[in-house]
């Protein structure tokens, strides 16, 4: 289809502000009378606050006040996992206990040093398997796991069960969760190659560039909150609840966010924004709470670490017959996510196994909180499963590309334990495109070629994430100037999806981009509800809403024109910012005119009547404030059917130095399969960005805690090893399949998460390739692990440990 906007590059309106430094992040704002808050955080991994003596601090010059958990939770803290605003029951080092406000940060820091907190030290644990041991410590007060609607519970295995798992065997304990489909035994029976082994994924920290600083002040009964988030209205909707301010009284200002990869999608991940809000309320001054990099590590949280056992069977032709997966996941100090289930789901989707069984147990540890972050489960399992596929291919004499093609998902297939059909799926096309552009076949002659201590490894890998939601709302407005105002509640997290989804509205109305304004950045501009911008969903979810709202406006334009100018709405079409009769283009209204007429007519044309049912409360507030101010197109998106997948395929060639353990990625190409491409440069950014994340996951990023005392050791960029320019390829080639998805009006699906998984899959496959098929069963695979493997030395590591060095 020939689109006016879709699939074309454009400059999102915030880009100039980013290159000039003009765009404002939360900490760039000031406010008359602003004071500075700093946090006092727990130095102890698991403790109970017995007493806080802040008298000396409060007596200091320049100290304004403090905020404690008792202020925040006058009726007691919620007894569940999940992050709290402040707590008297810290379950990890760095958890905020109180905040202190002073005239400047230096004073605040000095004053905090004068606060005396008496703790009761409680037993702590840093690895789920240690907690599962009989007598092992529990991370939470009341257990090591939290059962929804039931509360804390304690789960223990026998010592033998833990030891046997650590020794590499299938866990024999009862899992918390079991999901399966197909006849597992029969499928393994059909298999001619079966791999079985344990694996460990370290968690990886969020570490967005902008620490989660926030500014809050109250004016005329309204709370103004400046903070960074991935989602604008979805986040505001949630944080209002956490702070306890009515939605209509919260103005959330968030023009730009310095990085969001999952942990800033939902307010529940950032309850600390309530600290300046509540402190400001208490001391009646604007409060800027600046978070340090170290605090950002703790507040920002991390992806779950997984410790698992996997058994995969392949039929003689390479078809994946069965996959049996048993995962103990690390829920951290504040509860975690469902990564382990998603890992199994991902294997089912990507490799279309005949039978899959997933068993899982999630256990808390006194480490950073875990949650949404670029590819929950799918990306952790990518570096584990991909080398297994390669070893199977070699064993079965199938090419490594073919084994992926044979098992690839396509339209009409189903995936996951729920056997959900895809809205569309073009994995074979993506594989083919990657192989062609990379010259996969041609490169096979270079496979395992050596040059001194260096050896070439080739890898190809796939990534997947469910990439689309629905059920949100859309609003477009037009004033008498005829400009289209697209009210977009999507967060500005750097993907530019707030802009590219808006282009669906412009497309519907055939509106030149110069005549469009995206209304976003702060909620007092009256924005509709959206889904949180996690799970690669924005493009799919919000093209639907923007498209729908513009469609509504288009319908209304035709109605007005038909009413005023005669004929039936169906007799009208649009072009060149006019709505006109198809038969006689001279009969019609300019958009400015039709908007003027709509405003005169009022009623449903200005949002005063006939609103869609089921509009979210948040959207209703926005509409009520926009009502009568202009021509309104409004839409509530019905639910879609099926699973809109985001797929990627990556191929890479590496040179691995067996003497130094260093890996040089010589070439890399990533192909996206995300339906219609909305914004090529944006797509390219997601692919190259995901690649850097995939490289970090596979070979660099660490999540270290000292087992002796529970202190986090990877709180900064240096210790957590976020990849740099020189750890990533000089050039990452990208491409995309670009076939439309039927469940989206413009054919688009999301891509953010899979772009990381396929890179991790390809890179670890290449490492395994370079090391003659050695499977580490771990992420990351760091230089020391490679050196030890090659030299035959080993470290005295605890097997399957997640937050420390692994064996």
């Amino acid at each position: 289809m020939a689109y006016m906007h879709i699939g074309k590059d454009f400059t999102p309106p915030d880009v100039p502000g980013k290159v000039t430094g003009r765009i404002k992040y939360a900490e760039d704002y000031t406010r008359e009378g602003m004071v500075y808050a700093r946090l006092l955080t727990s130095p102890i991994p698991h403790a109970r606050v017995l007493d806080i003596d802040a008298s000396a601090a409060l007596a200091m010059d320049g100290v304004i006040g403090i905020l404690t958990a008792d202020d925040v939770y006058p009726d007691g803290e919620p007894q569940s996992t999940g992050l709290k605003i402040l707590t008297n029951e810290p379950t990890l080092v760095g958890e905020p206990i109180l905040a202190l406000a002073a005239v400047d940060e230096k004073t605040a820091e000095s004053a905090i040093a004068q606060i005396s907190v008496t703790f009761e030290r409680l037993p702590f644990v840093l690895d789920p398997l240690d907690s599962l041991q009989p007598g092992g410590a529990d991370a939470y007060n009341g257990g090591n796991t939290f059962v929804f609607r039931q509360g804390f519970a304690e789960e223990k295995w026998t010592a033998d069960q833990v030891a046997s798992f650590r020794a590499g065997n299938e866990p024999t304990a009862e899992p918390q969760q079991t999901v399966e489909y197909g006849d597992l035994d029969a499928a393994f029976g059909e298999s001619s190659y079966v791999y079985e082994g344990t694996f460990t994924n370290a968690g990886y920290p969020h570490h967005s560039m902008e620490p989660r600083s926030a500014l809050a002040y109250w004016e005329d009964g309204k709370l103004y909150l400046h903070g960074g988030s991935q989602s604008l209205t979805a986040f505001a909707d949630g944080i209002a609840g956490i702070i306890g301010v009515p939605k209509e009284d919260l103005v959330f200002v968030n023009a730009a966010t310095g990085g969001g990869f999952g942990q800033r999608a939902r307010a529940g991940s950032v309850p600390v924004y309530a600290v300046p809000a509540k402190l400001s309320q208490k001391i009646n001054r604007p409060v800027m709470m600046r978070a340090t990099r170290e605090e950002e590590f703790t507040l920002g949280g991390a992806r779950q670490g997984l410790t698992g056992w996997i058994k995969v069977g392949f039929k003689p032709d390479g078809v994946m017959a069965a996959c049996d997966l048993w995962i103990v996941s690390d829920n951290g100090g504040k509860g975690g996510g469902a990564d382990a289930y998603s890992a199994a789901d991902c294997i089912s989707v990507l490799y279309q196994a005949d039978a899959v069984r997933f068993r899982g147990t999630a256990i808390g540890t006194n480490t950073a909180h875990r949650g949404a972050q670029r590819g929950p489960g799918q990306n952790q399992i990518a570096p584990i499963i991909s080398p297994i596929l390669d070893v199977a291919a070699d064993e079965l004499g199938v090419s490594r590309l073919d084994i992926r093609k044979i098992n690839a998902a396509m339209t009409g297939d189903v995936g996951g334990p729920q056997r959900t059909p895809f809205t569309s799926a073009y994995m074979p096309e993506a594989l083919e495109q990657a192989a062609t552009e990379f010259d996969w076949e041609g490169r096979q002659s270079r496979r395992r070629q050596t040059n001194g201590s260096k050896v070439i490894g080739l890898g190809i890998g796939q990534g997947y994430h469910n990439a689309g939601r629905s059920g949100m709302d859309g609003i477009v407005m037009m004033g008498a100037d005829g400009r289209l105002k697209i009210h977009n509640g999507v967060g500005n997290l750097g993907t530019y999806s707030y802009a590219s989804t808006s282009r669906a509205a412009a497309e519907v109305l055939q509106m030149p981009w110069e005549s469009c304004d995206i209304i976003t950045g702060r909620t007092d501009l009256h924005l509709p509800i959206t889904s949180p911008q996690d799970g690669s969903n924005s493009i799919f979810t919000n093209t639907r809403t923007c498209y729908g709202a513009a469609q509504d406006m288009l319908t209304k334009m035709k109605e007005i024109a038909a009413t005023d100018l005669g004929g039936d709405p169906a007799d009208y079409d649009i072009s060149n910012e006019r709505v006109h009769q198809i038969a006689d283009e001279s009969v019609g209204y300019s958009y400015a005119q039709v908007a003027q007429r709509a405003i005169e007519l009022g009623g449903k044309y200005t949002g005063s009547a006939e609103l869609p049912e089921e509009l979210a409360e948040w959207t209703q507030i926005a509409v009520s404030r926009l009502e009568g101010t202009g021509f309104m197109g409004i839409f509530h998106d019905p639910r879609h059917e099926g699973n809109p997948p985001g797929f990627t395929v990556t191929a890479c060639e590496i040179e691995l130095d067996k003497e130094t353990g260093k890996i040089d990625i010589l070439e890399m190409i990533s192909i996206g399969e995300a339906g219609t491409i909305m914004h090529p440069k944006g797509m390219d950014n997601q692919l190259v960005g995901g690649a850097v994340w995939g490289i970090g996951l596979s070979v660099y990023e660490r999540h270290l805690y000292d087992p002796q005392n529970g202190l986090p050791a990877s709180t900064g960029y240096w210790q957590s090893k976020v990849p740099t320019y020189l750890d990533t390829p000089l050039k990452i080639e990208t491409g995309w399949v670009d076939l439309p998805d039927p469940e989206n009006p413009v054919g688009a699906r999301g891509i953010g998460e899979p772009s990381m998984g396929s890179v991790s899959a390809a890179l670890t496959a290449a490492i395994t390739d370079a090391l003659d098929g050695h499977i580490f069963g771990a992420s990351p695979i760091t230089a020391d692990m490679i050196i030890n493997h090659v030299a035959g030395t080993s470290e005295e590591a605890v097997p399957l440990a997640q937050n420390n060095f692994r064996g």
Partner: protein
Amino acid sequence: MNQKLTRRRFIKGVIASGAAATSTAAWYSATGQERPSGFVERLVRINVNGQVRSVDVEPQETLASTLRYKLGLTGTKLGCNRGECGACTVLVDDVTTYACSVLTHSMKNGRIETVEGLESANGDLHPVQQAFVEELSPQCGYCTPGQVMSAVGLLRANPNPSREEARHAMSGNICRCGSYDSYLDGVMRATELIG
């Protein structure tokens, strides 16, 4: 308060016959001595983006603090405040420098440039900025001012770098979004714009 008493300090105490070291300022005032020469004056005139500004700068103040909180130049970002990310990169006499990890007093004789000072008088973007827009180099944008400054510093020293040279020159800037490839595209595009 730290009760730590290092052994060396004890030795010094013995040698100096028990004269305990204290804060120097207190020591000088207590002993009635004049401060040694070289003590810094707080009020300094610094050249930022071509303008000379008078600022009251604390002795220990970092350049990033002065720029952001005294001069309101918030384009210079604090990502880590520890020289581990590069978001605060500015140019001092054309040399890329972490503003979080130098003292304003150390740089006061230099020509300081921040991302706010790159546009021409008529508001045109600097070629690097223009190229970064064209190539959609930034993602979240938080590291972008630092990336821009590193690229500008590179192109002043080497107007025609190879992509490999560019990535080495840019390597002191972390981009957590992973937009390195797009930034390098931007740098290469900028070399074309500069011509």
